[in-house]
């Protein structure tokens, strides 16, 4: 939820800026006008309350205009000052003037509370209740007649409804904005997932095509009659192509020991073309990325394709290193291809050709 917080704050912050202007304009224009034209007892108390809430507006404007959330202590202190001012204003305003033309405070202080507590709804509702309760309670103690009650009721309901509506609407708006934001974020997430899935698929296609490369041209040359299937060299290429394809198919199988599975696939093809292969495995499965396995088994496929009658394939692994070797009776050594992670070594020793692909864990 945290990531949606700023959106909610954005709506509330905008409403707050509007509130600051409302309060800053209403207080000097309407409030001050009322304060100067009517009698208050003691006047000093009314003036003090007026100045105090003006200060609250000024202080909170420092955060609100920068669109920042009011710090807890500032909001709470401001609320206390406003509520105290509410009480002071009631005391200073003559009973007959309450909710009447001399009451500068009732409506104005409600806006102050909104300004201070818009993002702290429970406290806002409590403070509003106290503000309204104190005003209405004090009014009722004075023993108003029915006409007074009628007039006061109109004022209280009028102001109360407008202020409550402002709270409800801004909160509703902020919740909507948050939902819309969450929805947009979810859509973005989905879109980027689709994009990355497409990219992965494209990558797999190119990789597959890349691995098929040699085989495709071989098939094309055979079809065009450029290569003679009776030639030993052609057969050797065909054997290599078949081994690479079989290894590629094995790569995507879900098995507990992928490396041995892929090496076995190479051995399988070699055995089908009559090679006598012995496969030995030592150690348990080590978790290797697909590229490393490809770099380890690629030379195996090449060495097996080059072998004549016999080959020994071995996989030796510990936690630190994996060594895949092919010792065969191949007349010539297969081309050794080194890759960043895998070191391939190849050589002839008497009647034997030996190839070893070796991967070491980077520390």
């Amino acid at each position, binding site marked *: 939820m945290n990531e949606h917080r700023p959106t909610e704050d954005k709506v509330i912050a905008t409403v707050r800026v509007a509130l600051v202007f409302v309060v800053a304009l209403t207080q000097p224009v309407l409030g001050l006008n009322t304060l100067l034209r009517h009698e208050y007892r003691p006047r000093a108390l009314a003036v003090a309350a007026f100045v105090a809430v003006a200060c609250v507006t000024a202080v909170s404007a420092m955060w609100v205009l920068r669109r920042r959330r009011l710090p807890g202590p500032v909001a709470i202190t401001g609320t206390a000052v406003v509520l105290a001012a509410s009480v002071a204003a009631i005391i200073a305003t003559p009973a007959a003037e309450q909710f009447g033309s001399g009451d500068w405070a009732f409506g104005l202080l409600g806006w102050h509370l909104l300004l201070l507590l818009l993002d702290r709804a429970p406290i806002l509702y409590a403070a509003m209740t106290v503000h309204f309760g104190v005003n209405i309670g004090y009014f009722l103690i004075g023993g108003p007649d029915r006409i007074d009650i009628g007039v006061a009721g109109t004022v209280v309901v009028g102001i109360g409804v407008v202020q409550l509506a402002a709270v409800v609407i801004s909160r509703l708006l902020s919740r909507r904005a948050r939902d819309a934001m969450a929805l947009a974020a979810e859509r973005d997430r989905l879109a980027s997932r689709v994009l990355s899935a497409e990219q992965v698929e494209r990558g797999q296609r190119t990789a597959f095509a890349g691995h098929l490369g040699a085989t495709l041209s071989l098939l094309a040359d055979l079809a065009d009659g450029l290569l003679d299937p009776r030639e030993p060299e052609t057969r050797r290429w065909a054997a290599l192509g078949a081994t690479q394809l079989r290894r590629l198919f094995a790569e995507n199988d879900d098995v507990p020991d992928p490396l041995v599975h892929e090496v076995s696939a190479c051995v399988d093809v070699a055995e089908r073309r009559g090679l006598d292969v*012995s496969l*030995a495995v*030592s150690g348990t499965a080590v978790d290797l990325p697909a590229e490393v396995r490809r770099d380890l088994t690629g030379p195996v496929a090449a060495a097996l394709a080059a072998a004549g009658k016999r080959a020994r394939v071995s996989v*030796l*692994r510990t936690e630190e290193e994996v*060594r895949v070797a092919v010792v065969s009776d191949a007349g010539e050594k297969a081309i050794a291809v080194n890759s960043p992670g895998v070191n391939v070594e190849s050589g002839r020793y008497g009647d034997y050709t030996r190839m070893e692909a070796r991967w070491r864990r980077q520390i």
Partner: protein
Amino acid sequence: MAPTNLSAVVVDDHPAVRAGVAHWLGSGSPPIRVAASGDDVRVAWLGEGATADVVILDLHLGGPVPAIGDLRRLVRAGRRVVVYSMRSDDITALQCLELGALSFLTKAEGADHLLQATRAAADGRAYTPPSLAGALAGDRSDQRPSLTAREIEVLIEWFQSESKQLVAERLGISQSTVNSHLEHIRVKYAMRGREAPTKAMLVARAIQDGLVRLDDL
């Protein structure tokens, strides 16, 4: 100085394997006589089987549980055992050595390795076929003795090539040096872990042959 008229007892639950092993041993030079064979380890304790020089024991006698208990009892009685197993599982291979088996062969390894292992066992020596060399090279257990870099290379090359000639050529040493490296490794293993008569015999032979000195122990 291998004794002539060697005899072996074959314990395996497949009649074809028993017949095949008997044939291989009989056609070796010099031939090894199969004194008794059967699908139960009792043949190694009764009649002619009880006095055979070497016990060739299949670890998986008709059940999923390897016959480790039988191996332990045979070794404790001083019998020279060559374990001949269907599976090439490193942990089981190392466990058999720890118990005192003189060799561990997988059935994928042919007649030559079986003959050499049986002859070596009759003589109280260890034989390390390529698959076992692979298991020793990959051994990372606490029981593992400290091997020199050269010894590890010998194990790995032997595992990879199955040819001592190639190992010798690759490492620039003679084939007999390859053999003595392999024997030395097995003596180091024999000196670790629990006692067994065959292990003591192995160490004694190594001292006799000048492979290790008494001070090394």
